[in-house]
Protein backbone atom coordinates (compact mmCIF):
# COMPACT_ATOMS: atom_id res chain seq x y z
CA UNK A 1 0.00 0.00 0.00
CA UNK A 2 1.48 3.28 -1.03
CA UNK A 3 1.43 6.38 1.09
CA UNK A 4 -0.32 8.63 -1.43
CA UNK A 5 -1.35 7.54 -4.87
CA UNK A 6 -3.05 9.58 -7.54
CA UNK A 7 -4.37 7.38 -10.29
CA UNK A 8 -5.10 8.79 -13.73
CA UNK A 9 -6.78 11.90 -12.48
CA UNK A 10 -8.37 14.36 -14.82
CA UNK A 11 -9.37 17.81 -13.71
CA UNK A 12 -11.52 20.15 -15.73
CA UNK A 13 -12.09 23.76 -14.93
CA UNK A 14 -14.85 25.64 -16.73
CA UNK A 15 -14.77 23.12 -19.58
CA UNK A 16 -11.02 23.40 -19.78
CA UNK A 17 -8.68 20.50 -19.19
CA UNK A 18 -6.12 21.40 -16.58
CA UNK A 19 -4.86 17.97 -15.60
CA UNK A 20 -4.86 14.99 -17.87
CA UNK A 21 -4.31 11.42 -16.76
CA UNK A 22 -1.93 12.36 -14.00
CA UNK A 23 -0.62 9.38 -12.08
CA UNK A 24 1.72 9.90 -9.22
CA UNK A 25 2.94 7.87 -6.29
CA UNK A 26 4.51 9.32 -3.21
CA UNK A 27 6.42 7.22 -0.73
CA UNK A 28 6.40 7.89 2.96
CA UNK A 29 9.22 9.97 4.42
CA UNK A 30 10.29 11.21 1.02
CA UNK A 31 10.56 14.62 -0.49
CA UNK A 32 8.88 14.62 -3.87
CA UNK A 33 8.93 17.59 -6.15
CA UNK A 34 6.80 18.58 -9.08
CA UNK A 35 8.40 21.05 -11.42
CA UNK A 36 7.00 22.75 -14.44
CA UNK A 37 6.36 26.10 -16.02
CA UNK A 38 3.71 28.61 -14.99
CA UNK A 39 0.29 27.25 -15.72
CA UNK A 40 1.42 23.68 -16.21
CA UNK A 41 -1.09 22.48 -13.63
CA UNK A 42 1.11 22.09 -10.55
CA UNK A 43 -1.08 24.20 -8.26
CA UNK A 44 -4.20 22.53 -9.64
CA UNK A 45 -2.74 19.18 -8.72
CA UNK A 46 -2.12 20.23 -5.13
CA UNK A 47 -5.58 21.75 -4.88
CA UNK A 48 -7.07 18.54 -6.15
CA UNK A 49 -5.32 16.48 -3.52
CA UNK A 50 -6.42 18.99 -0.88
CA UNK A 51 -10.04 18.54 -1.95
CA UNK A 52 -10.56 22.11 -3.16
CA UNK A 53 -10.97 20.94 -6.74
CA UNK A 54 -12.70 17.73 -7.72
CA UNK A 55 -11.22 15.39 -10.31
CA UNK A 56 -13.63 14.58 -13.13
CA UNK A 57 -12.21 11.07 -13.23
CA UNK A 58 -9.53 9.03 -11.54
CA UNK A 59 -8.95 8.44 -7.88
CA UNK A 60 -6.68 9.55 -5.10
CA UNK A 61 -5.85 7.22 -2.26
CA UNK A 62 -4.13 8.03 0.99
CA UNK A 63 -2.91 4.96 2.88
CA UNK A 64 -5.36 2.97 0.84
CA UNK A 65 -8.42 5.12 1.55
CA UNK A 66 -10.02 7.10 -1.21
CA UNK A 67 -9.92 10.80 -0.46
CA UNK A 68 -10.95 12.40 -3.74
CA UNK A 69 -14.55 12.93 -2.66
CA UNK A 70 -13.82 14.41 0.78
CA UNK A 71 -14.30 18.01 1.84
CA UNK A 72 -11.10 20.02 2.30
CA UNK A 73 -11.35 20.06 6.09
CA UNK A 74 -11.70 16.29 6.19
CA UNK A 75 -8.54 15.96 4.15
CA UNK A 76 -6.68 18.25 6.52
CA UNK A 77 -7.99 16.06 9.31
CA UNK A 78 -6.31 13.08 7.67
CA UNK A 79 -2.99 14.91 7.80
CA UNK A 80 -2.68 16.15 4.24
CA UNK A 81 -1.77 19.79 4.66
CA UNK A 82 -1.23 22.26 1.87
CA UNK A 83 0.70 25.50 2.15
CA UNK A 84 -0.72 27.53 -0.67
CA UNK A 85 1.08 29.68 -3.16
CA UNK A 86 1.26 33.24 -1.90
CA UNK A 87 1.15 31.98 1.70
CA UNK A 88 -2.48 32.96 2.39
CA UNK A 89 -1.81 33.82 5.99
CA UNK A 90 -4.38 35.87 7.91
CA UNK A 91 -2.89 39.36 7.81
CA UNK A 92 -4.93 41.03 10.54
CA UNK A 93 -4.53 38.18 12.99
CA UNK A 94 -1.42 37.99 15.13
CA UNK A 95 1.36 35.55 14.38
CA UNK A 96 0.36 33.49 17.38
CA UNK A 97 -3.30 33.46 16.33
CA UNK A 98 -2.27 32.32 12.88
CA UNK A 99 -0.34 29.45 14.37
CA UNK A 100 -3.15 28.57 16.75
CA UNK A 101 -5.53 28.36 13.84
CA UNK A 102 -3.14 25.86 12.29
CA UNK A 103 -4.20 23.54 15.07
CA UNK A 104 -7.88 24.37 14.66
CA UNK A 105 -9.01 20.76 14.32
CA UNK A 106 -9.45 18.69 17.50
CA UNK A 107 -6.52 16.32 17.07
CA UNK A 108 -3.88 18.96 16.42
CA UNK A 109 -5.46 21.16 19.05
CA UNK A 110 -4.69 18.61 21.74
CA UNK A 111 -1.03 18.91 20.86
CA UNK A 112 -1.00 22.67 20.40
CA UNK A 113 1.71 23.51 22.98
CA UNK A 114 4.14 20.88 21.69
CA UNK A 115 3.59 21.87 18.08
CA UNK A 116 4.06 25.50 18.95
CA UNK A 117 7.36 24.73 20.58
CA UNK A 118 8.42 22.80 17.52
CA UNK A 119 7.56 25.70 15.22
CA UNK A 120 9.35 28.21 17.40
CA UNK A 121 12.39 25.99 17.46
CA UNK A 122 12.35 25.73 13.69
CA UNK A 123 11.68 29.43 13.15
CA UNK A 124 12.83 31.38 16.21
CA UNK A 125 11.90 34.64 14.50
CA UNK A 126 8.22 33.73 14.77
CA UNK A 127 8.51 33.51 18.52
CA UNK A 128 10.00 36.97 18.68
CA UNK A 129 7.12 38.32 16.60
CA UNK A 130 4.30 36.24 17.99
CA UNK A 131 2.31 39.28 19.12
CA UNK A 132 2.76 41.11 15.84
CA UNK A 133 0.09 41.16 13.15
CA UNK A 134 0.94 38.67 10.46
CA UNK A 135 0.40 41.28 7.76
CA UNK A 136 3.37 43.27 9.06
CA UNK A 137 5.86 40.47 8.58
CA UNK A 138 8.40 40.46 5.75
CA UNK A 139 7.92 38.09 2.84
CA UNK A 140 10.30 35.51 4.18
CA UNK A 141 8.80 35.61 7.64
CA UNK A 142 5.35 35.23 6.16
CA UNK A 143 6.50 32.11 4.32
CA UNK A 144 7.90 30.77 7.58
CA UNK A 145 4.61 31.52 9.26
CA UNK A 146 2.72 29.70 6.52
CA UNK A 147 4.94 26.66 6.94
CA UNK A 148 4.71 26.94 10.71
CA UNK A 149 0.95 27.09 10.48
CA UNK A 150 1.06 23.97 8.35
CA UNK A 151 3.18 22.17 10.92
CA UNK A 152 0.65 23.06 13.59
CA UNK A 153 -1.87 20.89 11.74
CA UNK A 154 0.29 17.81 12.45
CA UNK A 155 0.80 16.95 8.80
CA UNK A 156 1.73 13.53 7.58
CA UNK A 157 2.08 14.95 4.12
CA UNK A 158 3.05 18.58 3.77
CA UNK A 159 2.36 20.10 0.36
CA UNK A 160 4.28 23.27 -0.38
CA UNK A 161 3.28 25.41 -3.33
CA UNK A 162 6.11 27.64 -4.55
CA UNK A 163 7.62 28.46 -1.16
CA UNK A 164 10.45 30.37 -2.78
CA UNK A 165 8.22 32.80 -4.63
CA UNK A 166 9.45 36.34 -4.41
CA UNK A 167 12.14 35.58 -1.85
CA UNK A 168 15.78 36.60 -1.89
CA UNK A 169 18.23 33.69 -2.37
CA UNK A 170 19.39 33.78 1.22
CA UNK A 171 15.80 33.35 2.38
CA UNK A 172 15.12 30.65 -0.18
CA UNK A 173 18.05 28.73 1.31
CA UNK A 174 16.62 29.23 4.77
CA UNK A 175 13.20 27.95 3.73
CA UNK A 176 14.61 24.93 1.96
CA UNK A 177 16.75 24.13 4.98
CA UNK A 178 13.65 24.06 7.12
CA UNK A 179 11.83 21.88 4.63
CA UNK A 180 14.64 19.36 4.83
CA UNK A 181 14.52 19.56 8.62
CA UNK A 182 10.77 18.92 8.68
CA UNK A 183 11.27 15.94 6.43
CA UNK A 184 13.96 14.57 8.68
CA UNK A 185 11.53 14.63 11.55
CA UNK A 186 9.26 12.27 9.67
CA UNK A 187 6.93 14.32 7.50
CA UNK A 188 6.56 13.47 3.86
CA UNK A 189 6.93 16.48 1.60
CA UNK A 190 5.35 17.26 -1.75
CA UNK A 191 7.04 20.32 -3.16
CA UNK A 192 5.96 22.33 -6.15
CA UNK A 193 8.58 24.67 -7.48
CA UNK A 194 9.60 26.81 -10.38
CA UNK A 195 13.03 27.06 -8.92
CA UNK A 196 13.78 23.81 -10.73
CA UNK A 197 17.30 23.10 -9.75
CA UNK A 198 17.02 23.98 -6.12
CA UNK A 199 13.95 21.82 -5.83
CA UNK A 200 15.41 18.83 -7.63
CA UNK A 201 18.54 19.17 -5.60
CA UNK A 202 16.50 18.89 -2.41
CA UNK A 203 14.07 16.16 -3.41
CA UNK A 204 14.33 12.44 -3.63
CA UNK A 205 11.91 11.97 -6.48
CA UNK A 206 10.74 14.37 -9.12
CA UNK A 207 7.98 14.77 -11.66
CA UNK A 208 7.91 17.19 -14.54
CA UNK A 209 4.51 18.55 -15.44
CA UNK A 210 3.90 20.15 -18.79
CA UNK A 211 0.54 21.36 -19.94
CA UNK A 212 -1.36 19.22 -17.49
CA UNK A 213 0.52 16.02 -18.24
CA UNK A 214 3.44 14.31 -16.62
CA UNK A 215 6.22 14.24 -19.19
CA UNK A 216 9.08 13.00 -17.06
CA UNK A 217 9.54 11.31 -13.74
CA UNK A 218 12.34 9.67 -11.84
CA UNK A 219 14.94 10.10 -9.18
CA UNK A 220 15.56 13.78 -8.89
CA UNK A 221 19.30 13.39 -9.21
CA UNK A 222 18.74 11.87 -12.63
CA UNK A 223 16.33 14.56 -13.64
CA UNK A 224 18.80 17.22 -12.60
CA UNK A 225 21.04 16.24 -15.45
CA UNK A 226 18.32 15.50 -17.93
CA UNK A 227 18.80 17.36 -21.18
CA UNK A 228 15.11 17.96 -21.71
CA UNK A 229 14.89 19.88 -18.48
CA UNK A 230 17.88 21.98 -19.25
CA UNK A 231 16.45 22.87 -22.59
CA UNK A 232 13.00 23.58 -21.35
CA UNK A 233 13.92 25.68 -18.37
CA UNK A 234 17.12 27.33 -19.37
CA UNK A 235 17.03 27.55 -23.10
CA UNK A 236 20.57 26.10 -23.38
Amino acid at each position, binding site marked *: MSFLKADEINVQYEDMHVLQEVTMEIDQQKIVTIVGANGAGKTTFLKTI*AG*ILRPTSGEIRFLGDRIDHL*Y*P*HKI*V*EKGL*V*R*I*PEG*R*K*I*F*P*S*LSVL*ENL*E*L*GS*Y*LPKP*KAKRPESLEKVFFLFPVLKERSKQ*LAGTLSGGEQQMLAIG*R*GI*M*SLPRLLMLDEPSLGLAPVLVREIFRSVREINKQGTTILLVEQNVFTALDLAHDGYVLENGRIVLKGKSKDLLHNEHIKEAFLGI
Partner: protein
Amino acid sequence: MTIPGIPLLLQAIVNGILMGGVYGLIAVGLTLIFGVMNIINFAHGAFMMLGMYATYWLYVLLGIDPYLSLLLTIPLLFIVGLLIERFLIAQVLDAPGHNQLLLTLGISLFIENFAICLWSPNFRTLEIPYLQNVVNIGTVMISIPKVIAFLSAIIFTALLYYFLKKTDMGKAIRAASEEKEGALTVGINLKKIYYVAFGIGAACVGAAGTVIAPFFYVNPHVGGIFVIVAFVVVVLGGMGNFIGAFFAGLIIGLAESVGAAFVPGQVKQFIIYFIFILVLLFKPEGLFGRSNE
Protein backbone atom coordinates in the same frame (compact mmCIF):
# COMPACT_ATOMS: atom_id res chain seq x y z
CA MET B 1 -33.26 75.98 10.15
CA THR B 2 -33.50 77.01 13.75
CA ILE B 3 -30.81 77.59 16.33
CA PRO B 4 -31.51 75.27 19.24
CA GLY B 5 -30.94 76.16 22.88
CA ILE B 6 -28.48 74.38 25.11
CA PRO B 7 -31.02 72.14 26.94
CA LEU B 8 -32.39 70.92 23.62
CA LEU B 9 -28.89 70.23 22.35
CA LEU B 10 -27.95 68.31 25.47
CA GLN B 11 -31.09 66.27 25.21
CA ALA B 12 -30.42 65.60 21.55
CA ILE B 13 -26.86 64.50 22.26
CA VAL B 14 -27.77 62.14 25.09
CA ASN B 15 -30.61 60.65 23.11
CA GLY B 16 -28.48 60.40 19.99
CA ILE B 17 -25.83 58.40 21.81
CA LEU B 18 -28.41 56.04 23.26
CA MET B 19 -30.12 55.48 19.90
CA GLY B 20 -26.72 55.24 18.26
CA GLY B 21 -25.83 52.28 20.44
CA VAL B 22 -28.95 50.53 19.23
CA TYR B 23 -28.13 51.27 15.60
CA GLY B 24 -24.68 49.94 16.32
CA LEU B 25 -25.99 46.67 17.69
CA ILE B 26 -28.21 46.16 14.64
CA ALA B 27 -25.33 46.93 12.32
CA VAL B 28 -22.83 44.70 14.15
CA GLY B 29 -24.68 41.60 12.99
CA LEU B 30 -25.05 42.95 9.48
CA THR B 31 -21.40 43.82 9.20
CA LEU B 32 -20.33 40.42 10.49
CA ILE B 33 -22.33 38.74 7.76
CA PHE B 34 -20.92 41.10 5.20
CA GLY B 35 -17.36 40.64 6.41
CA VAL B 36 -17.45 36.87 6.28
CA MET B 37 -19.70 36.23 3.30
CA ASN B 38 -19.68 39.49 1.36
CA ILE B 39 -23.46 39.50 1.34
CA ILE B 40 -25.70 42.51 1.81
CA ASN B 41 -28.48 41.03 3.89
CA PHE B 42 -31.81 42.73 3.25
CA ALA B 43 -33.58 40.25 5.50
CA HIS B 44 -31.83 41.77 8.50
CA GLY B 45 -34.81 43.92 9.40
CA ALA B 46 -37.06 40.88 9.23
CA PHE B 47 -34.81 39.07 11.70
CA MET B 48 -35.05 42.01 14.05
CA MET B 49 -38.82 41.91 13.76
CA LEU B 50 -38.79 38.21 14.63
CA GLY B 51 -36.70 39.01 17.69
CA MET B 52 -39.22 41.63 18.75
CA TYR B 53 -42.18 39.32 18.29
CA ALA B 54 -40.45 36.51 20.15
CA THR B 55 -39.90 38.85 23.08
CA TYR B 56 -43.44 40.15 22.88
CA TRP B 57 -45.10 36.75 22.86
CA LEU B 58 -42.85 35.33 25.54
CA TYR B 59 -43.88 38.22 27.72
CA VAL B 60 -47.58 38.28 26.87
CA LEU B 61 -48.19 34.55 26.80
CA LEU B 62 -45.71 33.22 29.30
CA GLY B 63 -44.93 36.29 31.32
CA ILE B 64 -41.22 36.01 30.69
CA ASP B 65 -39.36 39.21 31.44
CA PRO B 66 -38.28 40.83 28.14
CA TYR B 67 -34.67 41.10 29.14
CA LEU B 68 -34.68 37.55 30.43
CA SER B 69 -36.17 36.46 27.13
CA LEU B 70 -32.82 37.26 25.52
CA LEU B 71 -31.81 33.81 26.64
CA LEU B 72 -34.44 32.44 24.27
CA THR B 73 -34.53 34.98 21.46
CA ILE B 74 -30.80 34.82 20.84
CA PRO B 75 -30.68 31.04 20.30
CA LEU B 76 -33.94 31.18 18.37
CA LEU B 77 -32.71 33.79 15.94
CA PHE B 78 -29.37 32.01 15.72
CA ILE B 79 -31.17 28.91 14.52
CA VAL B 80 -33.37 30.87 12.10
CA GLY B 81 -30.31 32.54 10.62
CA LEU B 82 -28.41 29.27 10.48
CA LEU B 83 -31.19 27.45 8.66
CA ILE B 84 -31.73 30.26 6.19
CA GLU B 85 -28.04 30.33 5.36
CA ARG B 86 -27.74 26.58 5.17
CA PHE B 87 -30.67 26.02 2.86
CA LEU B 88 -31.02 29.24 0.88
CA ILE B 89 -28.08 31.61 0.98
CA ALA B 90 -25.56 28.80 0.61
CA GLN B 91 -27.06 28.08 -2.81
CA VAL B 92 -26.07 31.46 -4.21
CA LEU B 93 -22.67 32.04 -2.62
CA ASP B 94 -21.00 31.88 -6.03
CA ALA B 95 -23.66 33.93 -7.78
CA PRO B 96 -23.19 37.62 -8.52
CA GLY B 97 -23.68 39.97 -5.58
CA HIS B 98 -26.99 41.36 -6.77
CA ASN B 99 -28.54 37.90 -6.87
CA GLN B 100 -27.61 37.37 -3.23
CA LEU B 101 -29.09 40.73 -2.40
CA LEU B 102 -32.34 39.92 -4.18
CA LEU B 103 -32.50 36.54 -2.52
CA THR B 104 -32.38 38.13 0.91
CA LEU B 105 -35.01 40.55 -0.31
CA GLY B 106 -37.28 37.64 -1.25
CA ILE B 107 -36.66 36.08 2.13
CA SER B 108 -37.61 39.25 3.96
CA LEU B 109 -40.75 39.61 1.83
CA PHE B 110 -41.69 36.11 2.90
CA ILE B 111 -40.93 36.55 6.60
CA GLU B 112 -42.71 39.89 6.91
CA ASN B 113 -45.88 38.66 5.27
CA PHE B 114 -45.69 35.43 7.20
CA ALA B 115 -45.77 37.62 10.31
CA ILE B 116 -48.84 39.45 8.99
CA CYS B 117 -50.62 36.14 8.51
CA LEU B 118 -49.57 34.76 11.84
CA TRP B 119 -49.86 37.77 14.09
CA SER B 120 -52.04 40.22 12.13
CA PRO B 121 -50.76 43.65 11.16
CA ASN B 122 -51.51 45.06 14.64
CA PHE B 123 -49.14 47.43 16.32
CA ARG B 124 -48.21 46.13 19.71
CA THR B 125 -46.19 47.50 22.56
CA LEU B 126 -44.56 45.98 25.55
CA GLU B 127 -45.22 47.73 28.81
CA ILE B 128 -42.98 46.58 31.57
CA PRO B 129 -44.29 47.88 34.88
CA TYR B 130 -40.90 48.31 36.50
CA LEU B 131 -39.54 50.16 33.51
CA GLN B 132 -41.77 53.17 33.17
CA ASN B 133 -39.02 55.24 34.67
CA VAL B 134 -36.99 57.96 33.26
CA VAL B 135 -34.17 59.70 35.00
CA ASN B 136 -33.89 63.45 34.78
CA ILE B 137 -30.48 64.99 35.04
CA GLY B 138 -30.97 68.72 34.98
CA THR B 139 -33.18 69.34 31.98
CA VAL B 140 -32.13 66.14 30.26
CA MET B 141 -34.51 63.22 30.26
CA ILE B 142 -32.90 59.82 30.09
CA SER B 143 -35.10 56.88 29.24
CA ILE B 144 -34.17 53.79 31.23
CA PRO B 145 -35.16 51.23 28.55
CA LYS B 146 -32.94 53.08 26.12
CA VAL B 147 -30.10 53.06 28.60
CA ILE B 148 -30.55 49.33 29.02
CA ALA B 149 -30.60 48.93 25.25
CA PHE B 150 -27.45 50.99 24.99
CA LEU B 151 -25.69 48.99 27.68
CA SER B 152 -26.83 45.77 26.06
CA ALA B 153 -25.38 47.00 22.79
CA ILE B 154 -22.05 47.54 24.51
CA ILE B 155 -22.21 44.19 26.26
CA PHE B 156 -23.13 42.29 23.10
CA THR B 157 -20.50 44.03 21.05
CA ALA B 158 -17.97 43.27 23.76
CA LEU B 159 -19.09 39.64 23.97
CA LEU B 160 -18.84 39.33 20.24
CA TYR B 161 -15.42 40.93 20.37
CA TYR B 162 -14.37 38.45 23.01
CA PHE B 163 -15.81 35.57 21.02
CA LEU B 164 -14.05 36.58 17.83
CA LYS B 165 -10.83 37.39 19.62
CA LYS B 166 -10.44 34.57 22.06
CA THR B 167 -12.24 31.47 20.90
CA ASP B 168 -11.03 29.18 18.16
CA MET B 169 -14.35 29.43 16.39
CA GLY B 170 -14.16 33.22 16.56
CA LYS B 171 -10.63 33.21 15.21
CA ALA B 172 -11.75 30.86 12.47
CA ILE B 173 -14.51 33.31 11.52
CA ARG B 174 -12.06 36.17 11.37
CA ALA B 175 -9.66 34.01 9.40
CA ALA B 176 -12.36 33.03 6.94
CA SER B 177 -13.43 36.62 6.50
CA GLU B 178 -10.02 37.67 5.30
CA GLU B 179 -8.43 34.67 3.63
CA LYS B 180 -10.69 31.91 2.41
CA GLU B 181 -7.98 29.73 0.91
CA GLY B 182 -5.85 30.04 4.02
CA ALA B 183 -8.84 28.97 6.08
CA LEU B 184 -9.28 25.89 3.94
CA THR B 185 -5.66 24.88 4.38
CA VAL B 186 -5.94 24.74 8.16
CA GLY B 187 -9.01 22.56 8.01
CA ILE B 188 -11.69 25.16 8.64
CA ASN B 189 -15.02 24.06 7.25
CA LEU B 190 -16.05 27.19 5.41
CA LYS B 191 -19.66 26.11 4.99
CA LYS B 192 -19.95 25.78 8.73
CA ILE B 193 -18.31 29.14 9.27
CA TYR B 194 -20.83 30.71 6.93
CA TYR B 195 -23.89 29.42 8.65
CA VAL B 196 -22.48 30.06 12.09
CA ALA B 197 -21.60 33.63 11.14
CA PHE B 198 -25.00 34.16 9.57
CA GLY B 199 -26.61 32.71 12.67
CA ILE B 200 -24.59 35.03 14.90
CA GLY B 201 -25.52 37.99 12.73
CA ALA B 202 -29.18 37.09 13.04
CA ALA B 203 -28.80 36.50 16.78
CA CYS B 204 -27.25 39.96 17.22
CA VAL B 205 -30.09 41.69 15.47
CA GLY B 206 -32.56 39.47 17.31
CA ALA B 207 -31.04 40.68 20.56
CA ALA B 208 -31.33 44.22 19.25
CA GLY B 209 -35.01 43.57 18.58
CA THR B 210 -35.48 42.36 22.12
CA VAL B 211 -33.93 45.39 23.76
CA ILE B 212 -35.68 47.79 21.39
CA ALA B 213 -39.11 46.27 21.98
CA PRO B 214 -39.66 47.91 25.40
CA PHE B 215 -39.47 51.43 24.00
CA PHE B 216 -40.70 50.88 20.48
CA TYR B 217 -43.66 49.16 18.93
CA VAL B 218 -43.87 45.74 17.32
CA ASN B 219 -45.26 45.28 13.83
CA PRO B 220 -44.45 42.99 10.88
CA HIS B 221 -42.73 45.80 9.01
CA VAL B 222 -40.91 47.39 11.91
CA GLY B 223 -37.52 46.11 10.72
CA GLY B 224 -37.69 48.33 7.66
CA ILE B 225 -37.35 51.41 9.84
CA PHE B 226 -33.94 50.33 11.04
CA VAL B 227 -32.48 48.27 8.24
CA ILE B 228 -31.58 51.01 5.77
CA VAL B 229 -30.00 53.04 8.53
CA ALA B 230 -28.08 49.88 9.44
CA PHE B 231 -26.63 49.74 5.90
CA VAL B 232 -25.43 53.28 6.30
CA VAL B 233 -23.85 52.37 9.62
CA VAL B 234 -22.13 49.32 8.15
CA VAL B 235 -20.54 51.29 5.33
CA LEU B 236 -19.56 54.10 7.66
CA GLY B 237 -17.90 51.70 10.06
CA GLY B 238 -16.08 49.91 7.27
CA MET B 239 -17.79 46.87 5.81
CA GLY B 240 -16.94 43.89 7.96
CA ASN B 241 -15.51 45.91 10.83
CA PHE B 242 -17.86 45.34 13.75
CA ILE B 243 -16.19 47.58 16.29
CA GLY B 244 -16.28 50.27 13.62
CA ALA B 245 -19.97 49.53 13.13
CA PHE B 246 -20.67 50.20 16.78
CA PHE B 247 -18.98 53.58 16.69
CA ALA B 248 -20.50 54.42 13.34
CA GLY B 249 -23.86 53.66 14.95
CA LEU B 250 -23.09 56.30 17.56
CA ILE B 251 -22.18 58.81 14.86
CA ILE B 252 -25.40 58.17 12.94
CA GLY B 253 -27.49 58.28 16.11
CA LEU B 254 -25.94 61.61 17.01
CA ALA B 255 -26.23 63.01 13.52
CA GLU B 256 -29.89 62.11 13.39
CA SER B 257 -30.80 63.30 16.86
CA VAL B 258 -28.76 66.49 16.84
CA GLY B 259 -29.70 67.14 13.23
CA ALA B 260 -33.36 67.07 14.22
CA ALA B 261 -32.67 69.95 16.59
CA PHE B 262 -31.62 72.15 13.70
CA VAL B 263 -33.77 71.07 10.77
CA PRO B 264 -37.25 69.64 10.17
CA GLY B 265 -37.78 65.94 10.72
CA GLN B 266 -37.59 64.94 7.08
CA VAL B 267 -34.25 66.57 6.59
CA LYS B 268 -32.62 64.83 9.54
CA GLN B 269 -32.67 61.58 7.59
CA PHE B 270 -31.38 63.45 4.58
CA ILE B 271 -28.27 64.31 6.60
CA ILE B 272 -27.61 60.62 7.23
CA TYR B 273 -27.68 59.76 3.54
CA PHE B 274 -25.60 62.77 2.74
CA ILE B 275 -22.91 61.63 5.16
CA PHE B 276 -23.27 58.18 3.68
CA ILE B 277 -22.59 59.27 0.11
CA LEU B 278 -19.66 61.42 1.19
CA VAL B 279 -18.11 58.45 2.99
CA LEU B 280 -18.74 56.17 0.01
CA LEU B 281 -17.02 58.60 -2.30
CA PHE B 282 -14.12 59.79 -0.22
CA LYS B 283 -13.51 57.02 2.28
CA PRO B 284 -15.08 53.89 0.83
CA GLU B 285 -13.22 51.71 3.31
CA GLY B 286 -15.28 53.41 6.01
CA LEU B 287 -14.25 55.73 8.80
CA PHE B 288 -12.66 52.88 10.72
CA GLY B 289 -11.20 50.78 7.92
CA ARG B 290 -11.97 47.30 6.74
CA SER B 291 -9.89 45.38 9.23
CA ASN B 292 -11.26 43.70 12.31
CA GLU B 293 -8.73 45.31 14.53
